[in-house]
């Protein structure tokens, strides 16, 4: 199976050591995490991890089951890029004189929809958000004009088809598991499950 970008979205308890427990599942299998973001989620008290990796679907599916097996993980989802709305943010520190002298740089920043965050006599900080390729292109262009500092944030993503976690959590909080939380939903998609 071909490798492609997958974004793994986890809903977890907000407890110390979660990042270690989760990242160990990847490193143990020698899988590189391309970006990892942790943040609050739409549900109070529930943490959301967004993890980007490039792997085959089979590997990602197995990884998600291992992750979901962790006691403090409520749910693991994995999605391809077309199932997501996603963004990455970047910050650029550029010498002020470059902007003043080179009209091209100013045009470039406008073209990429970069916003000014800070203006000083010696440098200007721009911010842009978007897909990786755009950020990479802008970085490459700015690199020609003495880019002093550059940083790109981890991917954050919204799942197009998701109805959020509120109703799921209610099911999780019940002592008796309910079919609503469809723990084995991935099995439904299994192509070769025997059909009657």
């Amino acid at each position, binding site marked *: 199976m071909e490798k492609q970008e997958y974004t793994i979205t986890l809903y977890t308890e907000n407890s110390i050591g979660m990042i270690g427990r989760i990242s160990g599942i990847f490193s143990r299998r020698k899988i590189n995490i391309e970006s990892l973001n942790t943040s609050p989620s739409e549900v109070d008290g529930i943490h959301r991890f967004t993890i980007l990796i490039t792997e085959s679907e089979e590997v990602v599916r197995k990884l998600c089951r291992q992750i979901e097996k962790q006691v403090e993980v409520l749910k693991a989802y994995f999605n391809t890029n077309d199932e997501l709305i996603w963004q990455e943010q970047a910050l650029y520190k550029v010498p002020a004189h470059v902007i003043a002298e080179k009209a091209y740089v100013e045009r470039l920043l406008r073209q990429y929809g970069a916003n000014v965050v800070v203006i000083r006599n010696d440098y200007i900080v721009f911010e842009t958000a978007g897909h990786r390729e755009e950020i990479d292109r802008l970085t490459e262009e700015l690199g020609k004009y003495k880019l002093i500092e550059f940083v790109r944030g981890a991917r954050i993503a919204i799942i197009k088809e998701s109805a959020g976690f509120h109703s799921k959590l209610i099911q999780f909080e019940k002592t008796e598991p309910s079919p609503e939380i469809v723990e*084995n939903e991935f099995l439904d998609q299994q192509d070769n499950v025997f059909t009657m």
Partner: protein
Amino acid sequence: MSTLEKTEKEQTAPATTQQLSGSQAVLEALIHEGVDTIFGYPGGAIMPIYDALYDYNDKLTHILVRHEQGGIHAAQGYARTSNRVGVAFATSGPGATNLVTGLADAMIDSNPIVCITGQVFASLLGTDAFQETDVINITTPVTKWNYQVTDATEIPGVLAKAFYIARTGRPGPVLIDITKNAQLQLFDYKGYEFCNHIRSYRPKPIVRHEYVEQAAQLINEAKKPFVIFGQGVILGKAEQEFKNFIEKGGFPAATTVMGLSALETDHPQHVGMLGMHGNYAPNVMTNECDVLIAIGMRFDDRVTGRLDKYAKQAKVVHLDIDPAEIDKNVKATVPVWGDCKETLPLLTNLISRVDHSNWLQEFRELEKEEIKEVIYDELNPTSDVMTMGEVINVLNELTGGNAVIVTDVGQHQMVTCRYAKFNSSNSNVTSGGLGTMGFGLPAAIGAWYGAPDRDVVAIIGDGGIQMTIQELGTIMQFGAKVKILILNNEFLGMVRQWQQLFHDRRYSFVNITSPDFVAVAKGYYIDGNKISERKDLRNALKTMLDHDGSYLLEVMVGKENNVFPMVAQGTSVSEIRLK
């Protein structure tokens, strides 16, 4: 709220809150969880708990082991024979790191274990304090759950959670690290509440009836159905449900190493053991059957051999409580996800009563080949030196198959698993997944505390015994009636076998010398004997079994005997070698 409800509430609430130390709360929790035996070793950071234990001597038995690794292996042995949670105590730093091998072993073999480790004062965490180690991070990959307590008020809740997680679902080890200040801290103890739900944890997946139905239909259509079962049957306490299932369906059934004793060895449908050194018929038939029904087993590489040539002709029904096991190694045609205690009866109801005696007979024909090529000579050798197999065979005759058999790791383990007879469940204690040499002796001590009315025989090689031989001191001090049977071939036999077969007999550091084991035992005031002649075997084993108390018997066996059959690494199960 009605008055009735009110009175009930008041009755269940504790009369008064009392001041307890964190250490006392730990011991109260153990008592509430039904713990009677702790295996442990004290040290600086766990001293407050040991101080409290001084006053709980009448309610909790503490076995002072000689090394923390021995402590956790003993807790594992205890868990395996008693079907209860095993408990081990250790101090911070080296005490805790000495638990790691046992945690990894318990993790891969799904043993319910709760380890309590002491930790330096919370104010010293991260300062490289004396005997400080980052135990939580070290043990994360080898625990089902772990947690560090820095405040005593957390203790009752955290321990309730620890026991709940360790014993439910697919069991596993849990480690609770408690800082010394939390052990000493006094707090208002409001009684102990059992944990029966954690919102982020689903121990028992919901049984999907459509899959049970699909599985039943597949099984009913099968001409050559074959059941392979693992420890899940024992952990699910589903031995009877399992037997009902195979008897109604008439299926041949083979066990994994960990599944041994779930079905009595003499059962007419028991066709032997799977895997690298398993029996001939079940390995060959794995690639002949049309429906493979896997129950509570995880398709370990030692069971499957070469995966791309494993049961490719068969439809696979996989029953497991752990969703992550489905499709992990072998793709399931129908996954029956759930506790086999629940799913097996559902499946039994839906399957037809079929006579598969012709199919079963095919297994028996292959078994005859194995008897002719391997088993007969192993059990009736013509050479002067004894074989491991004949020792186990005589032991079977003397115990009748009623003993708890504990093994270490290596040739003696494979031979024992192949030939030992089991009449009842929870009788096989071995290190299956991790293959931990040194497991046998301490595990046997724990196994005896878990089943003190049963004969416990620890069968160990001359290599493995030397890894944890210090636990003879535990036996000496506390009197566990463990029978230690050392099968001495004067080699690290399994490695030697591989070097012989796959490395041109280049015997690289497998020649191990041994002390006078009987003298060592004597030094620990344990009786013993050493034999090297066949004529002494039966009497020596009988003396060992009849002895009231622990006993060590060393039996000299053939130096360069190999364990066969064998599925060589990288080959298919159907390419199993008989010699």
